[in-house]
């Protein structure tokens, strides 16, 4: 708090700095509004996945008088899912490369890495689709039992997150290709990168907690 003596009492009115429409004010945190928004959203999303993971852990081995069919854990194909997890993790690397290249104004590389990231994400989603269909053929439908409902809901929500990320990446690729996004807007790519890394980290947790812990 400023000392009373320091206050210039001759200056009473509020009005010293002009609102300037063309020159933007610095933010208090030094981070742009968009970046703080993404961090806040990711914080919120942590709780979403936290609740879904807790639900799965509570319900995965529950049985009642009407329970039948396999549980999700009976059908896990760990080697297969390990490979698709590895693909998703590698996409974080290519995402970093995309951000770095746009910051260095290397637009062709940025486009390449954006597309590679989207492709790796798509491979992961394809793997999930394959996994879901093979589980279904082995008798584990969404409504089969309580563990199947919990499993499909949790991994499905993660799949939707990855898919939205792919949509964003492809959109960025289109905008960078069309010249609407140049090096001066590198932060947009960086913010989408934050989202992408978050989705990857959540998958690490899901893979470890849901697939690997017996």
């Amino acid at each position, binding site marked *: *708090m*400023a000392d*009373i003596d*320091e*206050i*210039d*009492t001759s*200056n*009473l*009115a*509020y*009005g*010293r*700095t*002009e*609102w300037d*429409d063309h020159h*933007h*004010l*610095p*933010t*208090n*945190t*030094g*981070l*742009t*509004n*968009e970046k*703080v*928004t993404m961090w*806040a*959203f990711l*914080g*919120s*999303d942590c*709780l*979403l996945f*936290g*609740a879904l993971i807790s*639900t799965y852990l*509570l*319900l995965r081995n*529950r*049985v*009642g*008088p*009407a*329970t039948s069919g396999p549980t999700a854990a009976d059908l896990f194909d760990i080697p297969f899912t390990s490979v698709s997890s590895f693909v998703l993790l590698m996409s974080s690397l290519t995402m970093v490369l995309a951000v770095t290249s746009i910051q260095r104004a290397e637009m062709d590389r940025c486009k390449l890495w954006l597309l590679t990231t989207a492709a790796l994400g798509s491979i992961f989603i394809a793997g999930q689709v394959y996994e879901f269909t093979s589980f279904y053929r082995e008798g584990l439908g*969404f*409504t089969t*039992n*309580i563990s199947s*409902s*919990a499993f499909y*809901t949790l991994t499905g929500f993660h799949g939707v997150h990855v898919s939205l990320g792919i949509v964003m990446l492809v959109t960025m690729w289109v905008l960078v290709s069309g010249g*609407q*996004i*140049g090096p*001066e*807007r590198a932060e947009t790519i960086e913010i989408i990168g934050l989202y992408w890394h978050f989705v990857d980290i959540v998958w690490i947790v899901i893979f470890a907690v849901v697939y690997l812990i017996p």
Partner: protein
Amino acid sequence: MAITEERPEILELESGDTSFSTGAFARPTNASGWRAWFFTVDHKKIGIMYGAVAMFWFLWGGVEALLIRAQLFTPNGTVLTAEQYNQIFTMHGTTMVFLVIMPLAAAFANYIVPLQIGARDVAFPRMNALGLWLFVFGGIFLNLSWFLGGGPDGGWFAYAPNTGVTFSPGAGMDFYALGLQIAGIASLVGAINLIVTVLNMRAPGMTMLRMPVFTWMILVVQFLLLFALPVITVALILLSFDRTFDANFFNVAMGADPLLWQHLFWIFGHPEVYILILPSFGIVSETLPVFSRKPLFGYSVIVISGAAIGFMGWGVWAHHMFVSGLGPVGVAAFSATTMFIAVPTGVKILNWIATMWGGNLRFTVPMMFSISLVSMFTIGGLSGVMHSVAPADTQQTDTYFIVAHFHYVLFGGALMGLFAGMYYWWPKAFGYKLSESLGKWHFWILLVGFNMTFGPMHIVGLQGMARRHSRYGPEDGFDFWNAVVTIGAFVILIGMIVFAVNIVRSWLGYKAGTIPQEPADPWDARTIEWAIPCPTPEHNFDYVPVITDIDDFWHKKYQPDENGKLRKIADGNEIAQKGDQSPHLPSPSYWPIVLAAGLPLIALGLIYNLWVSGIGLVLLLGAMFGWSLEPATDPNAGHDDHGDDHDPDTNAPDGDEGGDAEVAEEAPVG
């Protein structure tokens, strides 16, 4: 941390390619009439609309309450059937929590917070409009159930498995689950927006610990919303999947544990309690110092205890579940945390009393409502601490004692504070004060009616009257106090009619010129929203205010003389900004309301026919497309008024050095 980065305008495409950034469709202009409201992105209009819509739902929730009380006026009441009673009490709670108190708090947050931090708008004006319209459509969607086979009937807490298709075969609970989902998205959008606004857009010199307490409490509430909403989102998703897609989350035959719902609901639900009350705590922390003519006693303690409530609110949820068989360790732990959370709340009460102590009190209507918050909330707080004692709570669970308790904190606390805020900030929003004499009638009738309604519930509750039951027998001995309670409820109705009359008469008087337009600073207030004219000009501040102190505006008006005695050195109305600048503002937009309209259609389709969902999805995606192609500020909107005919600096008595120095000084702190 050095401030190097710029603050870009929201979602604006800075490519300079105007053919791309003009948007796919024509955008609304600043027209008059209903368009000026439906397509606005102005935080002030959005705040007023939040308030108006919330007051409509308050009326409807009040009608539901009166129906409940009419049913319980005599033993074996016949006003409602048991089914109707279940629906009415469910929707009374749901309406009052999600459609009244939360949006009323959002109304104040939207209107006041940007003014208190010296900003021209919130960080993302169109997202702000989206939040409003999602709330509006969510509320309409929720209440559509009345016309489509009956309202939700599982209580506002919607305990599983009561809410499954087996026990609630109508569509009511579907409307509940999906309607709250829409309202939840509205709150989440608003929460992120306000967090960014408060963290990033404070005026130079306004460090976190110079922020007005109201803004502080709103910030805490937005963080609570940010982290609590996803949990109820998950719970509602599980419920919807069970009801719509035959999932098994709450299917006991498959081994489900109904406690899962209770935990998820109350992990959201207890922070929700603080989401409801902290805005009102913030409001009285503004009004009590103004009308006591003293600084807030222990500003930093109040702020820290508010934040402490925000943290500790996450560790007490299971006290709603003491009778669910948690086991002795769980019960003991949550008993202890519940006792602890009373400490920061009690600290606030004592600080408010100390603020008033020895002050030069002015008993205006906002002051009276503020004092009634302090006293009525204390009663509710004391009965709340009683619940932390698990053996006592076991006796009181599901009785009217609980109903009495939470109405004392939510009506006697949250609503009283919100009424204080309405009377206090009315001139800032509309330019004139509400009538003080009618306001006092409103206050006293409401206070008497409130205590008549909820006071006796303590007694019948301890006598064992169970809540949520549509009938009691004549042999139970509850009839006298229930008659008193019902009469009290109608006294509250009279009080609210007086309030409505006050609003209409004051408005008519203002139009007719018999009620004067207020100057900038009608209450001799302390914070900078009073340093601009009443009503607030469209652009808020002519110049960025530079903040040097807590209660900065007060210190511009009052300074100690050489003997240390406080002297008035300036008149607030004279030093206030004139509101005669016209800076460039964010332009109105069609897309928030169109995007928001997509969600209830998707939800309706999930209940009835997926084709309807398809229409909603098209609307949603189309609006997202239009939104992202449209710059936040219309490049074609007039810039002409920024000619050379006025030089803003001539209105400023000082140069820019002060401002720049403040930024540099403040940067490491903020």
